[in-house]
């Protein structure tokens, strides 16, 4: 099954640098499995992608597709006892999966950092916002509390918190949702990380604030030329900020291309489904949204062959072996990977005739 991904050269690199030279972030055949009483959960199963400085990668997928598990895996935040992690994660020429936990800890929060989804639960309720930012700074910098405090105020100012000298001593619950997310971003950026992973950074926020937060991330990225991964189930968010998009389903990448390509010429039926179920305000209201039928698969017991086949409207079309043979990204082109058995020309014509008109 998934081992075929390894051998048949299915992981054609997608992105600005198709050569074999190492990218700033280079994830190769990442597998994160959890042993549970019910069986092995294959949360991430053979994921490969690369990302350069200054670029933004959007990872899209439903809940339980392995997006967050991937990001936590890169940061080394899984417990080694319960999670079995294999593959390689190269960050700026340094391999992280095999590195000592202490080494990864020193990189964590400094060279690579993360913005979490819900800033109300992700910040400690008993410590002031300032104290938490100061702590994040002082883990990686030998500076006095006073200097770190100045840095915290500076960061709060940078992310657009009014009166940062005053708000620095407030507790998270005294901030509004958007302000809290800004504070969270300030905390993540306090050490000028070169890799920033934002896990659903706007999900808990209302729409006007969402745009501000995305702008903020984009501005800060431009300034520090950092690599950014945005994890979301919201295609609108990635459309806004991502250069490349990786679509995940059942712990695997099913489609990978530039954002432009994914939105204009998506090839995987799952991506079609995602696009069709996305509300659009710039179109008149005609029909109902088209949801993807069925539920995300169990990661303990993935469907055979293509794991999307039970939900796919084109399953076994013209006798293709969806239920038995697992497709690889190589079914697409080097610039546009798509793990689908439907022949490439046919995929394009199905999209043009069936999907695009109803978007």
């Amino acid at each position, binding site marked *: 099954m998934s081992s075929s991904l390894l051998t048949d050269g299915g992981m054609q690199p997608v992105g600005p640098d198709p050569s074999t030279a190492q990218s700033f972030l280079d994830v190769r055949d990442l597998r994160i499995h959890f042993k549970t009483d019910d069986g092995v959960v294959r949360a991430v199963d053979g994921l490969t992608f690369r990302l350069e400085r200054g670029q933004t990668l959007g990872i899209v997928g439903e809940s339980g597709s392995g997006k967050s598990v991937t990001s936590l895996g890169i940061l080394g935040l899984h417990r080694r006892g319960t999670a079995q992690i294999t593959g390689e994660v190269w960050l700026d020429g340094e391999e992280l999966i095999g590195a000592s936990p202490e080494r990864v800890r020193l990189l964590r929060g400094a060279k690579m950092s993360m913005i979490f989804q819900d800033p109300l639960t992700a910040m*400690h309720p008993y410590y002031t916002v300032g104290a938490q930012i100061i702590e994040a700074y002082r*883990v990686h910098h030998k500076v006095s509390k006073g200097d770190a405090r100045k840095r915290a105020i500076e960061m709060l100012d940078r992310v657009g918190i009014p009166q940062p000298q005053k708000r620095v001593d407030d507790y998270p*619950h005294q901030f509004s949702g958007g302000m809290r997310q800004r504070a969270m971003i300030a905390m993540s950026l306090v050490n000028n990380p070169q890799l920033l992973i934002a896990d659903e950074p706007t999900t808990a926020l209302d729409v006007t604030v969402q745009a501000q937060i995305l702008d903020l991330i984009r501005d800060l990225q431009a300034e520090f030329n950092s690599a950014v991964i945005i994890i979301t189930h919201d295609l609108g968010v990635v459309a806004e900020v991502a250069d490349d998009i990786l679509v995940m389903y059942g712990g695997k990448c099913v489609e990978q291309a530039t954002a432009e390509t994914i939105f204009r010429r998506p090839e995987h039926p799952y991506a079609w489904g995602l696009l069709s179920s996305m509300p659009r305000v710039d179109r008149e209201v005609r029909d109902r949204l088209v949801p993807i039928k069925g539920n995300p698969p169990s990661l303990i017991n993935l469907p055979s062959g293509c794991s999307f086949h039970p939900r796919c409207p084109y399953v076994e079309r013209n006798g293709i072996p969806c239920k038995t043979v697992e497709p690889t990204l190589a079914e697409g082109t080097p610039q546009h990977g798509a793990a689908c058995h439907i022949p490439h020309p046919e995929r394009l014509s199905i999209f043009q005739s069936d999907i695009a008109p109803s978007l």
Partner: protein
Amino acid sequence: MINYILRRLVTAALLIVAVSIVTFGIFFLIPKAVGADPAEMYVGKSATPRDVEATRVKLGLDQPIYVQYGRYVKGLVVGRDYNSGPSITHCSTPCFGYSFRSDREVWPLLLDRLPVTISLALGAAVIWLVGGVLGGVISALKRGSLIDRAVMFLALAGVSLPIYFTGLIFQALFVHQWPIFRGGEYVNFVDDPLAWANKLFLAWVSLALLFAATYARLTRATMLETVSEDYIRTARAKGLKERVVIAKHAMRSVLTPIVTIFGLDLGGLLGGAILTETVFSLPGIGRLSIEAVRTKDLPIILGVTLFGAFFIVMANLIVDLLYAVIDPRVRLG
């Protein structure tokens, strides 16, 4: 914040008043209901009816219940004079009345016993707090391991074994079999600190075992819950050392429920630990109350009850105030 403190103080005061009304009502109405006469109980069986009447008037027992209660409260606040015609006895603040049996003032009796109870409670508290919380934390961090199982077994044994069992076993082993500790009379701390600790140690351990079990379980459960919180993940994502993540970020949250039950447990114990004091023959408040119950010495029972209630209410108050220190979200309220 000041508002919060004031509100808590008023609540505490009202609570004590309510408790005093209820206990006073119970202890003075029930004898009436069952046909017992407090005045008779005070003077004893051999007294003449005239003596009984005189005592009734002297103690004010001929007055309606609300007058009696009013005088009782007045006695607590400013002291009280008992007028039996020829002689006037003054009972100074806080006056809990006189013991039916020994004719002594209740308050000095309580004060006499208090150091013993405080010694017992505080010593045990230190042991169970350190032992229980430490055991719980280790147990949670090493979940599923042999240590976890051992701690949880001890905890189960601790809550299951009554003090009159562990206490007697300990004394049999460590006082009689191997005389490491001495039995005998209680010694004041100021007289001989070593003898004081020696006498109390087994009592501390027996009492602490009972409480430590609860604390270990509570700590373990809260710790397990806390380490899966998002903010703990954030702390790790900052690159903090695991030791800091646990000792600073997780412990801060784990302490909240611990502080709550610790306050209540300690407050309850200061009102007297009847079983422990009896098993280890410690002359504390608990022993005083059990003796008073046995001899139907109403003023002492009332005094001990109010005294215990006072400690519990104060403990509640302190817990509430500590809460505001621990959890900033409480301060808004």
